[in-house]
């Protein structure tokens, strides 16, 4: 890794983060909020831009990025952006320890949506906006944004794209990375603006509409209300959010094709069909189970459908909005939600988790093994769409899933001593690594992560990064070979 090159790119990234923070400070100032709020944002913004300027000045280097440099930029860039993004929370006194602030910031950037803050209604708008904005820039990838808006030496942008973009296949629609990045961010912005207008039409205030459209398209899940979406008491808003959460969980290149007038790929995409199929199945099963639940939580058919569909969409796309305390729901529904958390959205979307496409390939590979067990001479291809997957790709996908689960296991074992009960430890690790947000028991929908000790918060934040950047980008920096020149 070439440290100078890496930090030169990071300086740009920090510059963008600093500017956006300053913007939130300005909003806070203009809305006449308490001095502590806007000064916290202004100081953080100024500090971040200063650091960025110093880095930029000391590391002027035009060399092309190597693959390792790309990993370094993304891993360290995200960490430093997290640190920068955490400062306003700490300076404004919203949290007690720096670690809690870092947890909040990383949870935002990785679009997890796990929070240490309660009584959101009392928090100044500027900081809530910043919180939503961290999710927005992290959703499509802040470095992909940097690639889109800054002139990058071609191959360098490609390394960043590879390291930051989620999903097993990094296919691009446009030949050049800069155009691909522009296209992705363009679609992302368009959907966000569309959602913003719809939410406003259906009764949210402008401020709430902006924040919620940011956190929905990023599948983040930060709300401006402690009660999350339930606080709005509006089926229309829930319906709109559900549709847009599902859209955010779909491969953005498919949206792009639709915008260009190509509808065929949309219907033919195997991953998308599987994704929607699972969603429908889970909604139906959830509705039935909620209707037939014990008397205390049982709902009418329509009520059950409303809760189940919204929660399934929210959990499956790893957004993490809630309209009900699903911790009280029957254990069968909870088990199903855990499965959805693992699965996540489609490749190339802003959702987290293992990704539907990988699960699909894994299932197909398992079925193949079973069939081969019965009939060893059979030649059974594993396909993704019409594409035949060779053993190399299959191995890469399977080892990803295995490593993902193994990392989770290690996470759970480490978290057990740091949490009140095992259910909390398990669900916290799964939701953080899957970038969902709320879990069960002590970290369930009405609770926050505030009571988890600092060590636990740090570990969970690391798991969020590991989950968002899909393991290898973060794990690579622990390899000695990475540090060699």
């Amino acid at each position: 890794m070439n440290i100078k090159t890496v930090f030169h790119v990071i300086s740009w990234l920090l510059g963008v983060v600093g500017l956006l923070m300053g913007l939130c400070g300005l909003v806070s100032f203009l809305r006449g909020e308490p001095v502590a709020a806007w000064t916290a944002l202004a100081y953080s913004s100024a500090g971040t831009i200063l650091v960025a300027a110093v880095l930029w000045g000391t590391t002027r280097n035009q060399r092309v990025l190597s693959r390792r440099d790309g990993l370094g930029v993304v891993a360290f860039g995200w960490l430093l952006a997290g640190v920068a993004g955490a400062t306003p929370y700490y300076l404004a006194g919203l949290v007690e320890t720096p670690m809690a602030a870092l947890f909040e910031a990383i949870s935002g950037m990785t679009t997890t949506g796990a929070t240490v803050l309660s009584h959101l209604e009392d928090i100044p708008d500027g900081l809530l906006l910043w919180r939503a904005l961290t999710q927005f820039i992290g959703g499509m990838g802040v470095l992909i944004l940097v690639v889109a808006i800054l002139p990058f030496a071609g191959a360098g942008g490609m390394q960043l794209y590879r390291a930051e973009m989620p999903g097993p296949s990094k296919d691009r629609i446009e030949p050049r990375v800069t155009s691909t990045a522009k296209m992705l961010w363009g679609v992302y912005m368009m959907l966000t603006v569309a959602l913003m207008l719809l939410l406003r039409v259906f009764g949210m205030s402008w401020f709430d509409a902006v924040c919620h459209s940011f956190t929905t398209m990023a599948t983040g899940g930060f709300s401006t209300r402690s009660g999350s979406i339930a606080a709005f008491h509006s089926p229309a808003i829930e319906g709109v959010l559900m549709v847009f959460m599902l859209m955010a969980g779909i491969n953005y290149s498919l949206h792009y094709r639709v915008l260009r007038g190509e509808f065929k790929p949309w219907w033919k995409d195997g991953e998308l069909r599987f994704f929607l199929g699972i969603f429908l199945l889970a909604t139906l099963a959830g509705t039935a189970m909620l209707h037939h639940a014990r008397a205390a939580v049982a709902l009418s058919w329509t009520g059950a459908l409303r809760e189940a569909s919204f929660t399934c969409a929210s959990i499956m796309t790893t957004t993490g909005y809630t309209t009900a305390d699903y911790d009280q729901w029957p254990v069968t529904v909870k088990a199903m939600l855990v499965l959805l958390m693992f699965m996540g959205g489609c490749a190339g979307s802003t959702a987290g988790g293992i990704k539907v496409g990988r699960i699909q390939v894994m299932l197909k590979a398992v079925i193949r093994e079973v069939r081969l067990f019965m009939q060893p001479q059979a030649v059974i291809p594993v396909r993704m769409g019409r594409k035949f997957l060779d053993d190399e790709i299959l191995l890469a996908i399977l080892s990803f899933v295995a490593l993902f689960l193994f990392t989770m296991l290690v996470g759970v074992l480490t978290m057990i001593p740091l949490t009140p009960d095992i259910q909390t430890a398990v669900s916290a690790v799964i939701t953080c690594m899957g970038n969902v947000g709320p879990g069960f028991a002590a970290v369930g929908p009405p609770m926050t992560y505030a009571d988890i000790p600092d060590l636990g918060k740090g570990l969970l934040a690391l798991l969020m990064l590991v989950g968002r950047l899909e393991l290898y980008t973060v794990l690579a920096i622990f390899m000695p070979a990475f540090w060699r020149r």
Partner: protein
Amino acid sequence: MRIVIIGGGQTGAHLAEKFCEDEHDVVVVDSDEEALAELDSYLDLLTIHGNGADPTVLEEADIERADMVVAVTDRDDTNILACIFARARGVKRTVARVSSSSYSSSRHIHFEQLGVDLLVNQYDEYARDLYNVLRLPGSIEVADLLDERVMVVGMSIHMDSPLLANQLRNFAREDWLQKIRFVALVRGDQVMTPHGDTAFLVGDDVYFAGEPDAISDFMQWAWPEYKRFQRVVIAGGGELGLQLARMLEQTRMQIVLIEQDEDRADFCSGELNRTLVIKGDALDQQTLAGIGEAEDMAYVASTGSDEHNIIGCLVAEKYGARFTAAQVGKKEYIGIVNQLRLLDRIVDPHLAMINSILHFVRGKNVQAAAILARLPGELIELKLAAGHAWAGRRIRDLQVPSGVIIVTALRGGKVCTATGELELAAGDRVVVYCLPAAQSKMESLFTA
């Protein structure tokens, strides 16, 4: 511009690199996944795996959105078919590479009507290149400019060269400077444009331009003891060897073509008139001994094997060949052979082709006039539009960016040597040479 390259082999890779440098959107289609992975690792482009003449693969590459398709796989039929399909999907410009001259010389099939705008026969290009060098003994490379009315020639400076005497401003024969324009000077790894203070040193490679007759006379003067070749031995009767022999038959040189394969040898002898075709192994000492030693002999190795070609040249040198040239495809070999200075000339199978294709790709007022293998930088042709900043001014008075030199101008079919006194006019076709460092400054020249 969106360019789809069919074939990610050496030519395809080289073109992709050039196009990426020029900030085009590049898509490469190839059936070799490893080659694609290699390209993808260092260039910003999209790769599509599959056969380039397969309509489904072309759809996958979004062929209808391409502005241009360049088909350079090593199969002629694939290339032509890919271009025809591309045209059927509305692609405006198509280029196909072919290696068999039966395509490029066909009088009855009009490829432009079929949808192939430019058919490049790589071997025609190499053969022309070699023919030029053999025609001008002493030159290290030759390129034609302005419809072959002007030549650019590279020549090494030897111990007793009359060029050594003075600085260029005190040049001994002022009259040459009216006909010959010095373009560039390669000294070790450095390239520079000559100016008044420049003095030539032994071992420099100097490049100059002029009309063919003037060049010929000038070389006679600059290197009198360098005699014309009497005999050219060509090892390998493939497309390149055959084409070269055909061209050389127009000169007075004695031509010997050695071909191992009996059928091919028969075919070659039928195609050629006064060339002596020998069936045998070019590496076999007896074959060469049978031809007999000759003092002014040139040897060109163009068999299908790089290794055979290199060794063949070394053997030929032992038999008195004064000039050896080999067709070498592998990049690794080209570097080593150049470093060891084993051969006088390497025929790089990509360069001449790439030259033609780039020529075709660039815009209306700008053309890559020629690419010289050993001279970094570029020779660019531009047509002075009315109102161009240069029109109506003497070269002496122009503000030419450093590293850029005006080589020659063509006005109404007449070549004008670019002396300081020459006054340029709108409508002139001007050839400019620019150093690699100055290439970015070139943009301003075209918009000016």
